[in-house]
């Protein structure tokens, strides 16, 4: 065909994902082909303390470079554990012009106002979003473009200690990646749960000595709690979910607990049995025992790559938007 050369070249759809997990760093490169995500290569390295994260990330990247030599310039960064703290603030207000569609500017103003009033001593916000909304009493996942008078916006904000954010800045500078988005990994993993149409659930990401509980209320993430117990400390681990769920309202009691291993060494069957035999009614006043499931593979991605897949999805939606 003549003048084929003048046709627009397909956009380079490769992008980089770096995930600081609970006990290991994983970096990966994804290709987007015909709206399908394909994993081009993965590099992993364990770390035992926060100070090791920098070196482990460099080593994981070296391992990845051995498989895929061309590291893309743009990437996404997922965070778990460490000093991660989250807070969800419900902003309620009445709109003077109810017939005007809610736009990005309006939600951003609300989010900024919420953020201004948060205590940020010794910590830095690295991610904030409207995780859910109610318009005139009707729950919606995305309020943009909708009209209404009484609005409730769930403003989800994630912090890290200043020291850890500094370290990540240094790391990103070292590996020369243009980070387009940085967010809690569990936040993106929970979007897979949305496909299961579960409203109230608990994502339990478990390592050997560190774990993280994410609470989903009304279909959106309300809190993420990292803590220092894991498969090596099963005798104490029930106190973790008791602590995480101690203030949960009855109507938001989880109907599903989704178990996700942080690494291949964490065998979750024992924990599943613990959770199934736990007396939810008498100990935390949850009337119906939640269903306990170990995360299985999603869209041909193995269990150990699910966090990467979830982050990659964020990467593509970011690209698309």
């Amino acid at each position, binding site marked *: 065909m*003549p*003048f084929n050369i*003048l046709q627009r070249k397909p956009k380079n759809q490769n992008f980089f994902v770096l995930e600081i997990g609970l006990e290991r760093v994983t970096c990966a490169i994804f290709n987007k082909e015909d709206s399908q995500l394909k994993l081009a290569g993965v590099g992993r390295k364990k770390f035992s303390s*926060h100070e090791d994260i920098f070196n482990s990330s460099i080593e994981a990247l070296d391992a990845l470079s051995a498989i895929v030599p061309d590291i893309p310039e743009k990437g996404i960064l997922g965070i778990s554990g460490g*000093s991660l*703290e989250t807070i969800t603030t419900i902003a309620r207000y009445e709109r003077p012009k109810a017939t005007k569609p809610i736009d*990005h500017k309006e939600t*951003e103003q609300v*989010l*900024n106002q919420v*953020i*201004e009033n948060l205590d*940020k001593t010794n910590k*830095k*916000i*690295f*991610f*904030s*979003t409207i995780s859910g909304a109610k318009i005139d009493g009707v729950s919606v996942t995305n309020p943009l473009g909708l009209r209404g008078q009484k609005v409730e916006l769930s403003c989800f904000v994630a912090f890290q*200690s200043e020291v850890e*954010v*500094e370290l*990540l*800045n*240094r790391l*990103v*500078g070292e590996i020369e990646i243009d*980070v*387009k*988005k*940085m*967010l809690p990994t569990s936040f993106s993993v929970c979007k897979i749960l949305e496909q299961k149409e579960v409203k109230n659930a608990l994502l339990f990401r478990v390592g050997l*000595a560190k774990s993280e*509980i994410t609470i989903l209320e009304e279909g959106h993430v309300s809190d993420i*709690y*990292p*803590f*220092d*117990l894991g498969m090596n*400390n099963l005798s*104490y681990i029930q*106190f*973790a979910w*008791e*602590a*995480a769920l*101690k203030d949960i309202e009855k109507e938001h009691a989880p109907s599903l607990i989704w178990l996700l291993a942080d690494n291949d060494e964490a065998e979750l069957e024992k924990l599943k049995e613990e959770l199934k035999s736990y007396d939810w009614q008498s100990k935390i006043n949850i*009337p*119906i*025992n939640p*269903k306990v499931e170990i995360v299985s593979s999603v869209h041909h991605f193995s269990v150990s790559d699910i966090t990467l897949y979830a982050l990659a999805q964020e990467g593509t939606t*970011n690209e698309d*938007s």
Partner: protein
Amino acid sequence: MKILRFEETNNLIDCLEAIKAEEDTEIKIFTAESEFLKKNLNREIIQLVAKNSKKTVSFEETAPKISEAQAEITERTEQAEAPKENLGFVEGRDVAAPTAQEEPLVPESKKGFKLPSFKFPKGKKLYIIAGTCLAIFLIAALTFVFLPSANVIISTEANFKESELTLTASKSASSPDSAKGIIPLKILDVNEEDNIEENSSGTKTTGTTAKGRVKIVNRDTANGKTFFQGTVITSLSNQSLAFSLDRTATISAAPAGCEADCPQVGVDVTAKTIGEQSNLSSGTVFKIGDANINFVFAKNDTNFTGGTSRKITVVSANDQKNAKEDLLKKLETKAKEDFQEKNPDFIIPEGGLTFSVINEVYSKAIGEEAQNFRLSMQVKFTANAFSEDTLKELLIGSISSNIPSGYGVDEKDSKITSEVLEKTGEDLKILGKIKASLIPSLNSNEIKAKISGKSFSRVDSYLRSLNSVSGFEIKISPSLFRFFGILPVVKDRIKIEIAQGN
């Protein structure tokens, strides 16, 4: 109060073990020295473990002035030594959100203006410039001819034709036979397994029967009496309350003129029904079986006790039935998805999916007390399926003679459905339905030839003159060439798409 301090090397487990081992019930923990104590959930866990060991824990920040000063010095030194890398994270803002555009860099304008000097080229230079101009002209002309492309989307009036055809889906047939109306049938199997949790809705009254002791008094001077174990006695004041004798009682005939000293015998009794209403107070008089109350009666000297009742939630047969129906629906959907995934080109007619339950286990039996219960089922689904393309082909073939002239069937937009009418041996009689989308038979090549190189107004009048065309849209690429107001000269650069309007 015991004070516990932890070093940087300590972890949460060390802290929990120390609390458990501590004899004091009041413990204070200083938090500043250990990272793990800065996590909120770790602190909550510590509180819960302490509470579980019947101890109380309080946290306090330690802020020794020396360490604070050191920390400040270290921080300042770091700031001085290493300039901060900027990731673009702004406190209080989502970095994923669109950011305000940076101000464009505007070059400083130079003061004053001077025309460049110009000399008319001569000799060799003139040829070079003339050649360059010619080359530019040729490139521009070739670009104008070969570069632009057009996508012409012609909307046609929506026309549909609906028809039905009875076919035989045969397992033994290997190829379709339009004359005999036969379509090859494929039997597909899949096993599905899942569980469902449902709430119980049945109620049941449960409890214990009242017990006590009565004395039987005989005033019959003529006959002694024997009342066998199980004989029913009823309260005179409330005949619905019945009790049975726990053992056989025998009593002799009464001496003439007896009053308070008539023969009597004591026997234990048990209420026939559960509940508090049978806890009768002492002094209640009972009729024994059919015996005449004037000759023989029973009376209790002590209160009857032990009768209780309460309502409980149980699993009802209806609950199990509903759970089974719900789970079967869920499994059926899953089975259809599995069939579809493994055999994307096949369709299952309505009524073409059968199932047999392989295993069905309820966590609670009917009548068993439970707020909720779980049903696990393994079901084998068998689908009678046939090729969607073959069915579409046969159905389109059946209406081809009735299609209006100048129209053809758009296979892509035509919808087919099927349902099982009856089963004959291994064959199925099925009813296939088609809602065929009819599109005008427009000759794309002829249209291309007519519109290539023509102005938009001429293209407009030509396309409007065509039968069944209700509208059209022209997309020129690159859009710059739209400025010229004509379609590409090369007809191969024109793409015709025919779309059906509403």
